């Protein structure tokens, strides 16, 4: 509710109330932290996919094991991607 009043109403009529600004600032920081976390997780999963491929090419894991790990990691990657998309859809801030 405070977010709604601050961003969609007060800012539209040119008013700024410091506590609401602070809430907006905290929300923005939280968004950035979450965004970096999702990117970091995505990078870690991609590295794991590459490492799994490497182990397969070295002959240290079997084709079945490689397929199993690869499918699990790709599922994780897709889920993580979906989470980041949902997050973006929710947070379209048109006034700032």
């Amino acid at each position, binding site marked *: 509710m405070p977010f709604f009043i601050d961003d969609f109403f007060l800012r539209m009529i040119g008013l700024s109330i410091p506590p609401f600004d602070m809430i907006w600032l905290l929300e923005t920081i939280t968004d950035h932290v979450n965004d970096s976390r999702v990117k970091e997780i995505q990078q870690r999963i*991609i*590295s794991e996919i*590459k*490492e799994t491929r*490497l182990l397969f*090419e*070295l002959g*240290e894991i079997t084709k079945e094991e490689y397929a199993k790990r*690869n499918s699990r990691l*790709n599922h994780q990657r*897709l889920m993580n991607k979906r989470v980041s998309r949902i997050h973006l859809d929710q947070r379209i801030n048109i006034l700032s």
Partner: protein
Amino acid sequence: MEKEKGKYFYCAIRCNKEKSFGKIGMNSSLVYAIPYRGIAAVVSDSPMNDYELTEDNTTRHEEVIRQVMEEHAVVPAEFGTIIKNETILRRILKKANDPTKECLKLVDNMVELGVKAILYENAVFADAKQRKDCISDILESLKAMAKQAVTGDLFSYRLILNASFLVNKEGVDAFSNEVARLQNKYSSLKFLYSGPWAPHNFVYIKIGTDGVEITKK
């Protein structure tokens, strides 16, 4: 409702006329070249879908480029690049004409070769200096046989070197011999040697919201 058809963009080549490469594209679609002032975009018709970065899809993308490479020097496009229609594609070719020609000149008669040096499971270096000297020796020996080299990310703690080299087609055998020599020299390391690839790590076309980006390293 059927999705609108776009053009899946594989790579750019030097070519003045329309040309077909057969049904080797994504979803077994026909791959053909659309020419514009000395260069051409190698494309296939495709729905405006997001292609997932799966092994099958990337292999298919790479196979098309590899086949085109047999006859032409290529500037590869980023995986999953789909252009809405031919008019927009021609506009892109017009805008990117000069940088693409420059890139094609750089990679003419060249291939990319990949080398990874991996520590065997229980092998370790005596100290950091020994590790550094070993990496530098491998890199310098291989750089001497190549026109250019770039290093990639070390995504595993056992991976001590991940590099790509731009090598003249006639120099591939000599390069392979050098890799074999290094493999004999460093018994605690396993070398993974791959290629020839399209020069993805040296020149590429990326089309995004910021416009067309032609990268030459």
